[in-house]
């Protein structure tokens, strides 16, 4: 129950986001991630989607290993200032081919995004807003009374958001 309550208070209310979108302030979110994952507080995957062309297993491993850095970053943040804490964790670690970014909600649900290293057009700010968009969508999933917190995410709306952020390989 506790975890549920936290999700009712997203950092940016959905209304705000919608207002921004209407004004056309939305950052140009092109399709750029190659893998997006949502990880539960207990570190098991709630949702993983990667571009279909590449080895899915590899991305699972990439996301899983990135949790080392997420754990470390969370423990470094400590318990202080839970409210004002930055949820965006930044670049977790670079590999030869990919950059891995992390984001953690107040209830310790993690979002991990893998981006192609060659994609230099993607700035930190864009990544940040992508995560925020993802968080809002995740909040919608949590608000669904039929969704049981801790279960795999099977929402079509969430899926669409994720797909919109992923590289469309023809």
């Amino acid at each position, binding site marked *: 129950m506790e975890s549920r309550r936290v999700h009712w208070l997203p950092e940016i209310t959905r209304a705000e986001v919608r207002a921004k979108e209407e004004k056309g302030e939305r950052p140009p979110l092109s399709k750029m991630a190659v893998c997006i994952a949502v990880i539960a507080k*207990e*570190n*098991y*995957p709630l949702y*993983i989607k990667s571009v279909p062309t590449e080895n*899915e*297993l590899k991305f*699972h*491993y990439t996301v*899983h*290993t990135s*949790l*080392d*850095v997420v754990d*470390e970053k969370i423990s470094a943040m400590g318990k202080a200032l839970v409210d004002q804490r930055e949820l965006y964790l930044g670049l*977790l*670690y670079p*590999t*030869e081919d990919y950059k891995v970014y992390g984001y953690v909600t107040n209830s310790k649900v993690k979002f991990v995004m893998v981006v192609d290293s060659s994609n230099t057009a993607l700035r930190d700010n864009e990544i940040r807003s992508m995560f925020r968009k993802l968080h809002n969508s995740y909040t919608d999933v949590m608000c669904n*009374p*039929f969704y*049981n*917190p*801790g*279960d795999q995410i099977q929402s079509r709306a969430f899926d669409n958001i994720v797909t919109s952020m992923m590289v469309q390989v023809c």
Partner: protein
Amino acid sequence: MSPSQWDFPVELCCRPMAFVTLTGLDVVYNAVHRAVWDAFCANRRADRVPISFKVLPGDHEYPKCRTKRTSYEWYIPKGILKTGWMNKHLNLVPALVVVFYELDWDEPQWKEKQSECATRVEIVRQSLQGRNTKVAVVLIQKKTPLPPGEDVIASERAAALCNACDLSGKSLFVLPHTDHLVGYIIRLENAFYEHAQTYYYTEIRRVKSHKEYLNKTTHQLLFVRHQFKIAFFSELKQDTQNALKNYRTAYNLVHELRAHETNMLEIKTMAGFINYKICRLCFQHNTPLDAIAQFRKHIDLCKKKIGSAELAFEHAAWMSKQFQAFGDLFDEAIKLGLTAIQTQNPGFYYQQAAYYAQERKQLANMLCNHEPATIYPNPDPLETQTGVLDFYGQRPWRQGILSFDLNDPEKEKLGILALQLKEKKVPHSELTITLLSNAVAQFKKYKCPRMKSHLMVQMGEEYYYAKDYTKALKLLDYVLCDYRSEGWWTLLTSILITALKCAYLMAQIKDYITYSLELLGRASTLKEDQKSRIEKNLIKVLMNENPDPEPDCDPVSVKAAQKLWADRVSLSGSNIFTIEVQEFVPFVQCKAKFISPSFHIDSPVQFDIFVKADCPHPIRFSKLCVSFNNQEYNQYCVMEEVYQKSETLESSIQETLCLIPGKTKKFTFKFVAKTEDVGKKIEITSVDLLLGNETGRCVILNWHGGGGDAASAQEALLAARSFKRRPKLPDNEVHWDSLTVQASTMIISRVPNISVQLSHEPPALTNEMYCLIVTIQSHEKTVAKDVKLTAGLKPGQDANLTQKTHVTLNGAEMCDDSYPALLTDIPVGDLQPDEKLEKTIYIHCGTVGTRMFLVYVSYLVSATIEGKEILCKCHRDETVTIETVFPFDVTAKFVSTKFEHLDKVFADIPFLLMTDILSASPWALTIVTSQLQLSPSMAPVDQLESYVENVVLQTGESASECFCLRCPPVTTGQGGVATGCYVITWKRTSAVKSTLVVNTVITLPHVIVESIPLHVNADLPSFGRVRESLPVKYHLQNKTNLVQDVEVSVEPSDAFMFSGLKQIRLRILPGTEQEMLYNFYPLMAGYQPLPSLNINLLRFPLFTNQMLRRFIPTHIFVKPQGRQPDDASIAAA
């Protein structure tokens, strides 16, 4: 491992140090020379100058110096850097040659020695012709030299020697062979170091001077070469800043070279070398970020420079080496004090090196899959005449050819073939595994457990490819639990598939079964068809048959495995495997649940075992058994199915132990608990499910406790959180998620069927024998045997209460401390059905307070359950809380005979003791009697008899007594005089006659006694009458041992006339008494003040009239005169 083509040469990786050769030292036979040499090379710590010394004979031939080119116009370089160049300047061409020569200044044969020395120098010079190498001479002398300037011969001869040897004075040294050898040596080597630096400086200048002759078209390679040489000489000179600068320039120049497939390898090799040097120096300068940036740049520049497609594996090998070398440099820097972080540590470079090593293997597999008949070309195109290459990174079959066109394509083909065939023999997996294990060690250090696990999986897989299945399985098995515990089922499944292959290929039956069980289970993400295949294989194994091979296995290994499996079948060894289930997620789940958390002994213990299978096909088990902490019960909880041998495991669904996938099956067990287990916990310690039978193979799935495996705890948590409504199921089916495990139950005694009633009159009064009547009535159908009563203070309360509480059955006797606080197991006998029994218990409470009393009745009764007769022990207990209060409050006070309050009494003068008994009991009390027990220091004035005998006090009522006492004079201390005790004998008014009376002793307060010099008492009637004479006699008693002078005066009062001595001065002898007689004549009626008697003691000024007032009356009541004067009054008038 022997150094491969890709390893960096030693001379590149070492730290360049100035090279100095020492000649003229015979370190084998000459002890002095040996000592000198030892002093040079032993104990070279960091604070010594960086020189590498070498002892060479005086006539050693140094590498010849090629004639210097005056013009580069027609010179075309054949490569970038010669393979021998670095070694030449590190180990062959010295910066300084030192000639050691034994010569003292006072040498008698000076001339001869001098010329010999000059010859030696000359020989060295000859050998070094054309080089800038310096020469120095060290004279080893036996004598300690005099301070400079004092030894005239020495300075003369030194000048002469310099002249003869053509040396500057700075190059001649003296080494006295004395006690301070090491000190001299250190000074010497510092001097050598300066010479060496000058040498390398001139070398740098020399190389730089070539630059102006070069042109950009034909001499591109030379730009790189010269820049590299300048940097290398700077390093030798220990000028690392300039070295770094020059290496950086060299690096940029390398990438400016025209690259083509033919020279790509040379360019990459040199780029790799220079990059290595740059990174190394950056780490040395403690600028690790520069090193990392350089390395990233290097990789980005070179990543795409694959070169010949047919030799693409070479690029991967080169890349792998670059990462590995950087990882090594990084690690070395850390060992020297650099701090790395989780996201930037050598592990990433090793990991990437391993990645390229894997790629190299794949490329090699792709490019080197020649026909087995392909023969290695002869003559070997990789052989060179000298056995080594002239230039780094060139092809042996076309060394020094700069043209981009292949003038001999046939030769090129053979060369490539030779390289490919050679690559085939490289132990790729071994290389990869080494790199991976390096990376594992790093990630372990930098808190990356998941990265570590991932790398271990890769290592395991690499071992699998290398056909080392034992090691592969060991590694994979090690990490499985990490992925399992975090619930990454996709990854777990992928690892399990490899593990299953390993287990199959080694015919490890137990592992094979374990992995199959998990791959069939709910944690597996395998598709149904795969699961189905695995299940069939599992059944085959259990039927003692060979399983089908796993897909995509190496065919040779499969053949070997099939043979192994066949051997296993014929082998009749142990075919029973016990598998602990809680460590993984098998395809059968089990939950045990006692129907109730506790059972009475007279009802059967019941529990259910729920089992559910997740595999694709129905499966039949042969046996289900449950074990308990008390193994006696195990025999009652076994379910076995006997079936014919011929039947297969997938049998008809109707059978009890056949599980249909997804359906929960319930097995109910029932047994009667043992009477000795009453009050104990019955726990299910394990549930065993047998798969297969003894004729084939048999697997025992063992659940610890009441079921549950590696994943069930998390599932239970989720299920508990879930808000989902579960659809309704038919009555006999249950939702698996809604089932909770209840693995233990309590056995509690039979419900007692007797009543215990307590009757008493609370509160209890201190020290009384409080009467508690226990009434026990049996409602049992049969005789309650062996009834026992335990009564008294409930254990576990304050220890003081235990000492101050006593319980007895005998009310006729007062309790003392020997009585217990709790009477245990008082036999009461048997109780017939409906029989009633009464028992009186007396409780003696010595202190006030609240106490809990326990009345516990136990008995035996026989009962029948499930056709079994058992003797049950039943008990009923009652607890009662009783307050103990004081029966009454007693106060005692001292007053004077005038009933005035006294805070002290005067010796020998009577006073009154008043006691007050205030009843505090809610029940009426009868005071049987009271008694004053005086202490020896007190004496009664009259009879001490009780005035309160048989007085009944209701709540709040009080009874008082008054005793007249006198205290003989004492020499008192501070504390006063003990008065004595007051004993009240009482009982409850309601108590029967036989009840014991209680004696309550109250200790009376101490009183302060003071002596007084003079005591006055007055004899006067109780009242007077107006105009009637009132005689008053004052007695003055001297209480001292002295003769007292007393002044007595009487002050008149308005109400009286009086006769007697108005003022007198008299003496009273010790112990005697003086009487004063007065006749008062009252004038007014009412309560009138008497004429006051004033006494003044001359010896005791402290004795005041105030004190006197205590003893003698000050007022008297005067009655008015009668109306009818009688005779007496007339007579008086």
